[in-house]
């Protein structure tokens, strides 16, 4: 199997999380202080890199069968979480992630908080806001990088996909100096959910001792099947939503959501 699906999946997953982290970093930097915000950002990136550096090689040393069983189960559960939320959002049962709204909420909170110097950082609020935002969004990417990379015995390719995504989103953020509200986050999360669920199921079954017809080529059928069934669920729920909301304003679909939710 080539490293392309691995790099692409990690790239898309990382880009989505980076867009959400960028919203928090921009809110902290533009309304508080850039120096403390960047310190928080760098501290979080160092922690995330350390987690990959420690866990990546450790997990890769496990026997492939056991690794694929455990990692396959974790990836399938994790992927189903992403897919479930993306389908509920796509069908209108859950609010779409609104970067512009999230940015305004973060700005309002940042403007109201007092400035406090602590542990050599001149604005502790900007530091912690940036640190927590990047760490929380980054942990999901680290999870995907380690599990996906280890199962394919190619953590390096997964790190490469993540690094390209962070670079692209950061460069765009610097150029635009505003939250990237036009990024089709739900479609990207839907795609990542499909890939994680498909690969997780594939590796989990292999780890359990099953042999796929056609070996790795089974994924060429598995991924489209998961995508089609997921699209089918979305269409069915959308129809249900349309029937249910006829003549009634759609209330639940407009509720704001947590900035850090996947």
């Amino acid at each position, binding site marked *: 199997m080539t490293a392309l699906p691995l790099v692409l999946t990690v790239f898309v997953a990382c880009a989505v999380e980076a867009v959400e982290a960028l919203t928090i970093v921009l809110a902290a930097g533009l309304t508080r202080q850039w120096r403390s915000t960047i310190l928080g950002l760098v501290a979080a990136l160092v922690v995330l890199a350390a987690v990959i550096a420690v866990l990546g090689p450790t997990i890769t040393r496990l026997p492939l069968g056991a690794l694929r*069983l455990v990692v*396959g*189960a*974790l990836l*399938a*559960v*994790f992927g*189903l*979480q992403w*897919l*479930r*939320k993306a*389908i*509920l959002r796509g*069908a*209108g*049962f859950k609010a779409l992630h609104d970067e512009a709204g999230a940015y305004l909420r973060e700005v309002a909170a940042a403007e109201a908080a007092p400035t406090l110097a602590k542990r050599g950082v001149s604005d502790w609020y900007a530091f912690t806001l940036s640190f927590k935002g990047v760490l929380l969004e980054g*942990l*999901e990417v680290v*999870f995907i990088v380690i599990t996906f990379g280890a199962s394919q015995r190619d953590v390096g390719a997964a790190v490469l996909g993540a690094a390209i995504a962070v670079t692209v989103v950061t460069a765009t953020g610097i150029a635009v100096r505003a939250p990237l509200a036009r990024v089709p986050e739900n479609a990207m999360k839907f795609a990542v959910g499909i890939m994680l*669920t498909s690969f997780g*199921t594939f590796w*989990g*079954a292999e*780890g*359990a*001792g*099953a*042999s*796929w*017809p056609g070996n790795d080529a*089974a994924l060429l059928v*598995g991924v489209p*099947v*998961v995508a089609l*069934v*997921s699209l089918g*669920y979305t269409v069915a*729920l959308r129809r*249900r*939503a349309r029937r*249910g*909301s006829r003549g*009634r304003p*759609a*209330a*639940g*679909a407009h509720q704001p959501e947590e900035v850090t939710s996947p």
Partner: protein
Amino acid sequence: MKRIRAIAGFAYDFVIGDDWRVAAVVVAALALTALAVHVADLNAWWLPPVAVLAALGWSLRRAVGGRKP
């Protein structure tokens, strides 16, 4: 103790998420596949994908329930 509970809660939310039943179905499906392969000598490769897609549908059905958007 409070901190350990908070970390455990975060880990649960992080991996399992909103519906623990989905995780339970995935684990059960892989365990059954292993049993089928190693005990009954049956190559049950089809079991995990069927279970995963059924679990997703079941979870979505439970999530929307009688709810309107």
